[in-house]
């Protein structure tokens, strides 16, 4: 051992690096060759055999991986938008323009200790945030992001969404009851009453859409709205959109109806006793909820991933496909990137004069060139593949509604509990019933689904 130790001691840094990396590289190469030749074919056909299982596993993993970043993006967006509306600037110290703020929210929430109050009933106390977070995360499974890209195309997608909404209430109630604190008790009871009484108008308002689309599967609804913006259900069901929008705000406990976490009355509502990552779950669940209801609003009423105008793309750029240059476009893009950086860097360095040192000039060149190349590649993909367009339109529309929810949070005061209930039962429910009746009557009278040419 001493010989190896002595030689290791004498070796320089680069020598040590090579001593470590070289064997690893060899091992890797051998492994891939063996894998491709022996292991790949059986796994491929095994997967080919039961594709739906694979699809489900990939979808669940994808959703679990994607929800936290969407929550981060929403938190950051809310911080900046509400700040801008309050004539302030919002976080701008952590990361560029404060972008890493929500990341550090995550770190803070992770690093804080999450303790339970003495009288709390521990199991329910720890399970409550899990239930709330899972309820909101699992609804993402059913939302069609793009033509090919969706978790599971359930033919009862809409019903699945409302089931998950009900599960979220369970989480809030568990939190309210278990944390042995009067404020959270009140918060829990308020959330139960509020979400139950807004669930009904929410569901009835969607039944109109289901009647028109003829199917309950989200994908089906989006396909039935394809074509230009006029085919969207929003224009065929204006009242339903309004009811859905209001009821969905109440469902996600957002501002005019955030009675459950009314910080000026019952401190932090059901989340009073929570801290650390448990509170983190509630915190992220709330923002994932906002994303979900705006995604659903877009899917049901504003045509999901369909483009607003009936434009000719996706234009089949076959030279990009396998027949054409195929996968070769990646190296071409890289070469273009390097060439562009050199040209731009040199140009800046020469023109820039004294204050532009070489590295910073080339750095800026790299930056601009990178942006240019990615834009070009993005545009090419946008034109070539329809799912890239789908994602673009879906997220554009969703973030318009997310902005509206955040905008409402910045402006509106809170509604009182009994006004909230009265509004649901006296106004929203009859309106949604009326809407349902009118749609059904229209279909029967015209004896065909209402699709204008």
């Amino acid at each position, binding site marked *: 051992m001493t010989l190896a130790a002595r030689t290791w001691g004498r070796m320089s840094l680069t020598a040590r690096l090579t001593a470590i990396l070289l064997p690893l590289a060899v091992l890797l190469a051998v492994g891939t060759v063996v894998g491709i030749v022996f292991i790949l074919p059986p796994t491929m056909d095994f997967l080919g055999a039961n594709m739906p299982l694979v699809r489900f596993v990939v979808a669940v993993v994808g959703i679990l991986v994607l929800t936290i970043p969407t929550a981060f993006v929403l938190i950051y967006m809310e911080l900046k938008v509400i700040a801008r509306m309050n*004539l302030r600037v919002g976080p701008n110290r952590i990361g560029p323009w404060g972008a890493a703020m929500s990341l550090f929210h995550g770190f803070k929430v992770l690093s804080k200790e999450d303790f339970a109050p003495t009288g709390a009933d521990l199991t329910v106390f720890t399970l409550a945030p899990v239930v709330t977070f899972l309820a909101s995360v699992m609804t993402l499974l059913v939302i069609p992001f793009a033509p090919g890209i969706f978790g599971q195309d359930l033919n009862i997608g809409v019903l699945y969404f409302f089931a998950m909404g009900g599960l979220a209430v369970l989480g809030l109630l568990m939190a309210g009851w278990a944390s042995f604190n*009067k404020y959270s008790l009140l918060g829990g009871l308020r959330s139960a009453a509020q979400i139950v009484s807004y669930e009904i108008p929410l569901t009835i308002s969607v039944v109109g859409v289901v009647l028109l689309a003829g199917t309950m599967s989200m994908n089906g609804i989006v396909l039935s709205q394809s074509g230009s913006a006029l085919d969207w259900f929003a224009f065929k069901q204006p009242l339903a959109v309004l009811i859905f929008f209001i009821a969905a705000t109440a469902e996600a406990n957002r501002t005019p109806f955030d009675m459950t976490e009314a910080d000026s*009355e019952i*401190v932090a509502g059901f989340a009073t006793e929570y801290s650390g990552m448990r509170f983190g779950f509630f915190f992220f669940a709330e923002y994932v909820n906002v994303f979900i209801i705006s995604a659903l609003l877009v899917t049901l009423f504003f045509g999901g991933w369909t483009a607003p105008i009936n434009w000719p793309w996706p234009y089949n750029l076959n030279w990009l496909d396998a027949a054409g240059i195929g996968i070769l476009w990646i190296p071409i893009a890289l070469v273009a990137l390097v060439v562009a950086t050199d040209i731009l860097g040199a140009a800046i360095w020469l023109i820039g004069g004294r204050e532009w040192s070489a590295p910073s000039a080339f750095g800026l060149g790299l930056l601009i060139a990178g942006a240019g190349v990615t834009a070009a590649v993005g545009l090419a993909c946008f034109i070539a593949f329809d799912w890239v367009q789908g994602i673009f339109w879906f997220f554009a529309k969703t973030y318009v509604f997310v902005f509206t929810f955040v905008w409402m949070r910045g*402006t*509106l*005061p*809170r509604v*009182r509990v*009994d006004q909230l209930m009265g509004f649901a039962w006296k106004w929203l429910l009859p309106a949604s019933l009326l809407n349902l009746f009118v749609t059904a009557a229209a279909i029967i009278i015209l004896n065909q689904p209402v699709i204008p040419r």
Partner: protein
Amino acid sequence: MPARPTRPTTRAARAETRGETRPQEPRPPEQHRSEDDPRIMLDRDVGADLYEPIPPYPTRTEREGEFYTRGDGEMFINIGPHHPATHGVLRLVLKLSGEQIVDVDPVLGYLHRGVEKICENSDYYHVIDQVDPLEYVSSLFQEWAAVLSFEKLMDVEVPRRAEYIRVLSGELLRVASHTLYMGFLALDLGGLTPILYSFIERDEIVEMLAALTGARMLFNYFRIGGVNGDLNHEFMSRLGDWMSRAARQTEANAGLLNENEIFVRRARGVGVLDRATALRFGVTGGNLRAAGVPFDIRRAHPYSIYPELDFNVPTRLEGDSLARYLIRVDEVRESIKIIDQCLHNMPDGPVMAKLPRLLRPRPGRAWGACEGPRGMLGVYTISDGSDQPFRFRIHDPSFLNLETVPTLLPGNLLADTMTIVASLDPVLGGIDK
């Protein structure tokens, strides 16, 4: 003896020099600690499950007994003292059945600093400094009440320019205080934005007053017989460009709430304080005028130069939280009108009357009162000829405004406590003195 006559030692020291020393009792070995008092139930013996704010000692008065007996289905809950919606350290013990409030018992004293005791041991200049942190949101008015009382005690005649500067800075601070009031009312109802707009507005005014008086919050600017410093260019320029956009800005900020249906529905008809109860409670200021009694000290008992200024006293009849809010909005307009008049006919001349450095007023009593943003601020001074006031009594309007809460709240919902308490606008510094 050229040295300045000695600052008189404390009363006890003089008593001691005259030999009437009190026998120094030996300090009792065992201190009376409330923990070892058998009659008091402590948390550790009561067990952790009982978290009722029922006081652990026998009820002392009929009202306390009636409040702390819990009916079936009733629950006690603490709003405060450490709570986002209380204006300072106020603790409201609510007796709830479900979300309905059955009864309220406000508990005060968390911010009691014994200002009256301190003022009795400091000379007349220090007293003005001690009264600043009382109504900290608008501390000039507290100084004004104290200074009015001392001037009556010492028969001092204040030069006209000083009176105009007092009215000018007072009305500016009234606008700042009302703007803050609107922000806090909206914050308690859940709106996030109005509080920021009101703080931006208030900060502008407070920076202006800092240019004039030298301080942003606890000004210590009024003196007995005048003010500390004359107007300077920086103050006038800032006042000029604020006045140019003052009216439009306050309208826009108030507009965010005035017609907002949610705010109107939450504030209208909530916490109605009718004329008779308001008079019975001795409530003064905006809350009384919202109940229909046009009682404003600037008109009812004119002091300083208010008789010469023309402004009207906004009054409403409904007496609910919305009326109290709209009264403040109108008062901001009136104050801007007053500031305008002050600027136009501002006389020149001295800003401070001639007074000896050591003030020893004649033995006697004097009551001075001025109209603060929350009501009548009164000071009752008794002087015994020495240079420390013998008794310095401070009357704060929020003390009586808050007293109406136990009659206004029962019957409303938990969410209405915030509306009613915020619309009454209590400032706990003045209440707890």
